[in-house]
C-alpha cells in the first residue's frame, strides 16, 4: 500500500475497525463493506447508532448502501474526480483543519520552481519521458532538499515493484528544506494542491462521475463537517479502489482529504484499508511479494543493489526518522535467516539474497509462463484459473508448465484445467497434448492447523487447531518446512554455487506429533527476534542491533513474543474499546497509528471528546488510551539540533515519525511512479474521453501488457460501449473453492448472474431471469440476468453510460458452476503495486446464451462490428 505508506509512513490501515464507532461520518467508497467485511461492519452500525452519518459512494446499490444514510451512485473508474472534487471543496470553502494542516502535514513545504503540474503539460507532471513511459522524479523534490546522486538514490527506472515504498517514500534528507508556515508562498504544497485541484469542480464531478451536483455537494458538506477539534470522519475502502490502473492514486486522494480534515491519528478518523482476504495484510508484512523483504524492507535489485550491504543500507535508510534504524532491521533479518553463517565479513550473507531482475510480480510471471520461461509453479490458497484476470490466458499458461503443484482441500479449476476447462470445451487445449505434470496435495483447513491471521487493521490473531486434519491433509507450515528440509538435503549434495544460500539457511524448527508438524511457537519466536549469544528473546524492535548480536524475522512484529510462553497474538482478554488485550497489533500493539496527532502541537488533546494520546507533564511521558506512536519521553516542545540524526531529528510536534520530515505528505516528493499528486485518467479501456486531458485517455505509466492473448479495445471503442465491473457476494468466497463446493453456501447464490439496470435491459432486450451474453476483447461469457433498479445508467459527458455488474465466483467445478467473469478481464499493471484493473472495463452485452461453436462466434463478431 504505497499510497498509505507515502502519505503517512506505513503501508497499513491507520486505524482499527472498532474505532469506527467513534466516527461522526464514515465514507465508504470502493468497498461494499457490509457484504465483504460483515463482521467488521458491526462497528459502522455502532457508529450509525451513535449518530454518525454513513455515506456509500458506489455504482451499485449494495447491501452496504442499504445500511447507509446516503447512497450516491458514481460511474466506475471516476473516483479521483469525485475525491478531487471533495479536496477542492474543502480548500475552496476553507474547511480544512488549519492548525492540523499547518503543523502535521507538508502543506508549508516549498516545492521546486521547475516542477510542473499536468495542467501545464497536457496531462503529465514534469519529469515525464515519453520514450520510456516513465517519470524521473527530481523536479518533485522539496526546494532546498539536498539531492542524492543517482548512485545512492533508489531509482524509479528499474523494473521493480512499488511495495518497497510501503515504508513511506524513499530515503532522503527531506527534513532539510524551505518552508512557509504562513502558507502564502505560491509554491508551498498547500497552494500547489489548491491549483492542481482547481478544475475538480462540482460541475466536473457531475459530467465525469455522473453524480448530480447537489448529491455531490451534500456528501461534501456532511463529510467535511466531520472535522476539527470536536469531530472526526473515517474513510473505508477495499479493492474497489485498489484494482484500478490508478488505484494507488485514488487512495492517495483519500489520504490527502483526511490530512486536510485532520482525520489521521485521531479517534474516529483514519483511512481503513479493508483487506480482501483473511491474512492479506500479513502477506505483505511477511511478504509473499517479490519486491519486499519482511517488515517492508526493499528486496535488493539487480544493478542498483547488486553491490555491498553497506551500499544497500545507505540507499534505503534515512538520515532522519524511523528508517534511520534500517541497518538494524536488515542485519537482524539476515541473522535470523543465515544464523552463524551470517558474519560481518560476508556482509551477513547479503549476497545470498536473490536479486530482482525483472517484473516477477504475479502478473509478470504469468506472462513468463505463457512464453514458456517458467518450469514449475506452486499454487497454494489461490485459484488463478477462476480468480485471476484473463482466465483464458491463465489456464493456457498453466499448460506450458513442466510441473504444477496445487495444494487445496478441493480439486479447483486450477488443478483440473487440463481436462475440465472452457479451453478443453472449445477444443483450444487437448488433454493429450498437455505435458504439465500436476501434483495435487490435500491441504488442512484453518481449523485443522495452528497459525495466525493478520487482519485488515494489522491485528495478529493466533488460532489453535481444533481437530487433526484427515488422512494426508497437512498444514502449510508442515509442507513448507518439510519441502525446505528436503531441498536443503539435496542442496548439500549438489555442487552448484547457487546452493550456498540454501546451505547457509537456518531451517531447524522443532517438530511434534506423528507427522513431525513444526512448532508454530518456535517460528513466532524467530519472528519476534532474539539475542544471538544466548537466544534470549528481545523485548521489542528497539533492542535490535546492526552488529549481528540480534536476529529478527520481521522487525515490525518484534514484541509479539517478548518472553518464553508469551505469544501476545494469543491474548484473549480485551480490556478497552480499542481491543488491547485481544491479539497483537503491529507496531508495538498500537491500534491507531500516528496517534501523536490526536494531541495539539503542545501535547494537550484537541478536545475532550476526541482525546486519545497526550503529554503528561507530571510523568514527563506520552500517555493515553492507546500505545503512543511516538518516542515516549520526547516532550512536545523538543526541537532537534541542526545536525541531529535518526529519531533525534524528529521534533516533539511531528507525529509522522516514519517520514524523515515527521509530517503527513499532501505532496509525495518521491516513492510513487505515477506522480506526486493524484490526477484523473480514465480506465485502460475508457468508454468516454478524459475530460481533463484529452491527450491522455488513461494512466500513461500503467502497463497494458498488450499481446495477442491479452488484447484491448480502442479508447471509446464502439464495439464495447458499456462499463463492466466485478465484485464479490457475501455468500461466496473469492474464486469459490471454499464456497461453491459447500451445499449450504452454494444454495444461497446458486448461479452466475449479471446485474443490470431496467433501462439497459429494455434497450437491449434482456429479460429478467433470462440469459445475457457479455463480451470483452478477451472473452465471452453468459450469465443469468438480474434486472434491478439497484443498477442505474449514468449521464456522463452528454451520453448515457450503462454498467454491467458481475460477481466473479464461478467456474467449472463444484456444486454450482458457471462461466468465470474474470475471463473478460485483461492482465495489466498499475505502476506502483502491479495490480490489474478489475473494477472498470469495457464490454458488450446482448440477450441470450453465448454462442457455441466457431460459426456462431463468427456470426456474433460480425454483428458486433455492424452495430458499432
Amino acid at each position, binding site marked *: 500500500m504505497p499510497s498509505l505508506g507515502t502519505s503517512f509512513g506505513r503501508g497499513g490501515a491507520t486505524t482499527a475497525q472498532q474505532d469506527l464507532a467513534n466516527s461522526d461520518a464514515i465514507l465508504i467508497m470502493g468497498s461494499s463493506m457490509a457484504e465483504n467485511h460483515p463482521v467488521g461492519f458491526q462497528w459502522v452500525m455502532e457508529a450509525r447508532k451513535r449518530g454518525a452519518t454513513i455515506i456509500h459512494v458506489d455504482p451499485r446499490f449494495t*447491501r452496504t448502501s442499504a445500511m*447507509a*444514510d446516503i*447512497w450516491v451512485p458514481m460511474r466506475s473508474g471516476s473516483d479521483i474526480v469525485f475525491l478531487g472534487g471533495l479536496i477542492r471543496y474543502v480548500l475552496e470553502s476553507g474547511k480544512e483543519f488549519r492548525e492540523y494542516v499547518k503543523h502535521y502535514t507538508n502543506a508549508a513545504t516549498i516545492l521546486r520552481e521547475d516542477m510542473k503540474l499536468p495542467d501545464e503539460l497536457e496531462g503529465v507532471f514534469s519529469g515525464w519521458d515519453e520514450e520510456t513511459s516513465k517519470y524521473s522524479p527530481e523536479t518533485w523534490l522539496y526546494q532546498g532538499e539536498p539531492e542524492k546522486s543517482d548512485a545512492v538514490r533508489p531509482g524509479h527506472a528499474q523494473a521493480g515493484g512499488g511495495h518497497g515504498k510501503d515504508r513511506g517514500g524513499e530515503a532522503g534528507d527531506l527534513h532539510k528544506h524551505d518552508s512557509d508556515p504562513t502558507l502564502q508562498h505560491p509554491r508551498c504544497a498547500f497552494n500547489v494542491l489548491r491549483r492542481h485541484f482547481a478544475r475538480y469542480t462540482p460541475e466536473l464531478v457531475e459530467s465525469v462521475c455522473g453524480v448530480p451536483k447537489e448529491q455531490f455537494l*451534500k456528501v461534501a458538506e456532511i463529510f467535511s463537517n466531520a472535522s476539527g477539534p470536536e469531530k472526526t470522519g473515517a474513510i473505508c475502502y477495499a479493492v474497489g479502489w485498489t484494482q484500478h490502473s490508478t488505484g494507488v492514486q485514488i487512495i492517495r486522494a483519500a489520504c490527502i482529504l483526511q490530512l486536510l480534515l485532520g482525520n489521521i491519528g485521531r479517534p474516529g478518523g483514519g483511512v481503513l484499508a479493508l483487506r480482501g482476504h483473511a491474512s492479506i495484510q500479513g502477506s505483505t508484512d511477511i511478504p509473499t511479494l517479490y519486491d519486499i523483504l519482511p517488515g517492508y524492507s526493499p528486496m535488493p535489485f539487480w544493478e542498483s543493489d547488486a553491490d555491498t550491504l553497506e551500499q544497500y543500507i545507505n540507499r534505503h535508510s534515512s538520515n532522519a526518522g524511523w528508517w534511520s534504524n534500517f541497518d538494524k532491521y536488515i542485519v537482524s533479518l539476515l541473522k535470523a535467516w543465515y544464523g552463524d553463517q551470517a558474519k560481518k565479513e560476508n556482509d551477513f550473507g547479503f549476497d545470498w539474497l536473490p536479486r530482482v531482475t525483472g517484473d516477477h510480480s504475479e502478473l509478470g510471471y504469468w506472462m513468463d509462463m505463457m512464453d514458456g520461461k517458467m518450469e514449475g509453479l506452486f499454487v497454494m490458497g489461490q485459484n488463478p484459473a477462476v480468480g485471476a484476470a484473463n482466465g483464458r490466458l491463465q489456464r493456457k499458461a498453466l499448460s506450458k508448465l513442466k510441473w504444477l503443484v496445487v495444494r487445496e482441500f478441493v480439486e479447483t479449476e486450477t488443478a483440473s484445467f487440463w481436462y475440465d476447462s472452457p479451453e478443453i470445451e472449445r477444443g483450444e487445449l487437448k488433454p493429450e497434448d498437455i505435458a504439465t505434470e500436476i501434483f495435487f496435495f490435500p491441504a488442512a483447513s484453518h481449523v485443522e492447523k495452528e497459525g495466525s491471521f493478520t487482519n485488515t487493521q494489522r491485528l495478529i490473531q493466533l488460532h489453535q487447531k481444533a481437530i487433526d486434519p484427515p488422512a494426508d491433509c497437512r498444514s502449510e507450515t508442515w509442507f513448507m518446512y518439510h519441502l525446505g528440509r528436503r531441498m536443503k538435503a539435496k542442496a548439500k549434495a549438489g555442487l552448484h554455487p547457487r546452493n550456498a544460500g540454501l546451505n547457509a539457511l537456518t531451517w531447524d524448527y522443532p517438530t511434534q506429533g506423528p507427522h513431525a508438524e513444526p512448532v508454530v511457537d518456535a517460528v513466532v519466536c524467530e519472528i519476534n527476534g532474539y539475542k544471538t549469544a544466548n537466544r534470549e528473546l528481545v523485548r521489542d524492535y528497539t533492542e535490535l542491533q546492526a552488529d549481528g548480536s540480534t536476529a529478527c524475522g520481521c522487525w515490525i512484529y518484534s514484541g509479539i513474543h517478548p518472553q518464553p510462553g508469551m505469544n501476545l497474538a494469543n491474548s484473549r482478554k480485551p480490556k478497552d474499546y480499542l481491543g488491547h488485550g485481544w491479539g497483537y497489533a503491529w507496531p508495538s500493539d498500537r491500534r491507531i497509528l500516528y496517534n501523536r496527532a490526536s494531541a495539539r502541537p503542545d501535547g494537550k488533546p484537541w478536545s475532550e471528546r476526541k482525546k486519545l494520546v497526550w503529554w503528561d507533564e507530571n510523568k514527563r511521558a506520552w500517555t493515553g488510551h492507546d500505545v503512543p506512536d511516538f518516542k515516549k519521553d520526547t516532550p512536545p516542545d523538543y526541537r532537534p539540533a541542526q545536525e541531529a540524526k535518526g529519531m533525534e531529528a524528529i521534533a516533539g510536534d511531528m507525529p509522522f515519525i516514519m517520514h524523515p520530515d515527521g509530517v503527513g505528505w499532501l505532496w509525495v516528493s518521491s516513492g510513487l511512479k505515477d506522480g506526486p499528486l493524484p490526477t484523473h485518467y480514465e480506465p485502460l479501456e475508457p468508454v468516454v474521453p478524459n475530460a481533463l486531458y484529452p491527450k491522455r485517455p488513461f494512466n500513461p505509466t500503467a502497463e497494458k501488457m498488450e499481446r495477442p492473448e491479452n488484447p484491448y479495445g480502442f479508447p471509446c471503442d464502439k464495439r464495447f460501449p458499456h462499463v463492466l465491473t466485478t465484485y464479490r457476494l457475501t455468500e461466496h468466497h473469492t474464486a469459490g473453492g471454499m464456497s461453491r463446493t459447500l*451445499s449450504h453456501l452454494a444454495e444461497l447464490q446458486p448461479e452466475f448472474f449479471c446485474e443490470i439496470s431496467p433501462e439497459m435491459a429494455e434497450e437491449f432486450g434482456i429479460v429478467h431471469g433470462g440469459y445475457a451474453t457479455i463480451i470483452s476483447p478477451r472473452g465471452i461469457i453468459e450469465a443469468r440476468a438480474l434486472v434491478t433498479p439497484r443498477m442505474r445508467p449514468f449521464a456522463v459527458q452528454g451520453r448515457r453510460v450503462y454498467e454491467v455488474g458481475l460477481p466473479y465466483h464461478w467456474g467449472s467445478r463444484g*456444486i454450482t458452476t458457471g462461466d468465470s467473469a474474470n475471463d473478460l478481464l485483461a492482465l495489466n499493471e498499475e505502476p506502483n503495486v502491479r495490480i490489474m484493473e478489475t473494477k472498470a472495463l469495457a464490454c458488450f452485452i446482448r440477450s441470450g446464451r453465448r454462442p457455441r461453436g466457431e460459426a456462431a462466434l463468427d456470426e456474433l463478431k460480425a454483428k458486433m462490428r455492424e452495430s458499432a
Partner: protein
Amino acid sequence: MSTVTGFLTDSTLCIGCKACEVACKEWNDLGADGLNWSGFSYDNTGALGHSTWRHVKFVEHPPELGHGGNSPELASWTFSSDVCKHCENAGCLEACPTGSIVRTEFGTVYVQPDICNGCSYCVVACPFGVIQRNKEDGRAFKCTFCYDRQRAGRTPACAHACPTESIKFGPLDELRAEAGRRIEDLHSKGMHDATLYDPVDTSVGGIHAFFITRGDPRQYNLPPQPEIPTIYAKQGWKSAALGAGMLAVGTFLAFLGGGKR
C-alpha cells in the same frame, strides 16, 4: 423454573449476510434446499421449511439518488431474518394429536422428532406457514429455538452468528422492553414506518420471536392478523352440537308424527 426466552429480530440492523441461515443449518445438521436461482433479489432459498429454519427475506424497492437504505424517507432494500414465532398460543402444538409438539421450559415450542407420526395437522394449523413436512421421512420440522444449546446455557446458533446484533436473544420481558425502546429510537430518527410485529391482540396471543420492520409487515411474510385454527373449534363444536341436537329433535318429531298416523 427456567427463564422464558425469545428472539428480537431487528430488520433495520440486518445486513442480509445470511450467516444466521447457514449457522442454523450447520448446527442443526439440516440438508440443503437445492440450487434454485430465483431471480428474486438475492433470495434463493425462498421461505422457511423443513430444512430452512432461519430464512432471510429480501425486500426491494427502487432506490432514490442520495438515499441509503437507512434514510428515514425510504427503506429501499431491506432484509429480515424470518424464523418460527414460537407463539404464545401455538396452532401447531394445539393441533398435534400425538403430543410430539410440546412447550419447553424456555417457553418455546418444540417438535420431538421421535414422536412425530407425520400426520401434518400442525402444518395446516400454523398461521405463519412455518412448519413443514419433510417428504422423505414424512415428519414435520421447524426451528427448535436451539433447545439443545439453550439447555447447555448457550445462545441459539443464529443469534450467535449474527454480526450486527440484528438477531437478539434473551429473556422475553427484557427483549420486549428493548423492542419498545428501539421503536421509539427509530421514530425519533424519523423512521415512522418502523413497527414492532408482535400480534398480542389476536388469538396467537403474542409471539416469542418478534420483529422490527419498516413498512407493511406483509412484505416480510408476516400476516397482519394471524389466528390459530383452534379458535374456530369452539364454533365448530357448537355447530356440530347444534346439528346433532337438531337431528335428534327432528328424529324425535318424526317419531311423534309417525305415532299419530
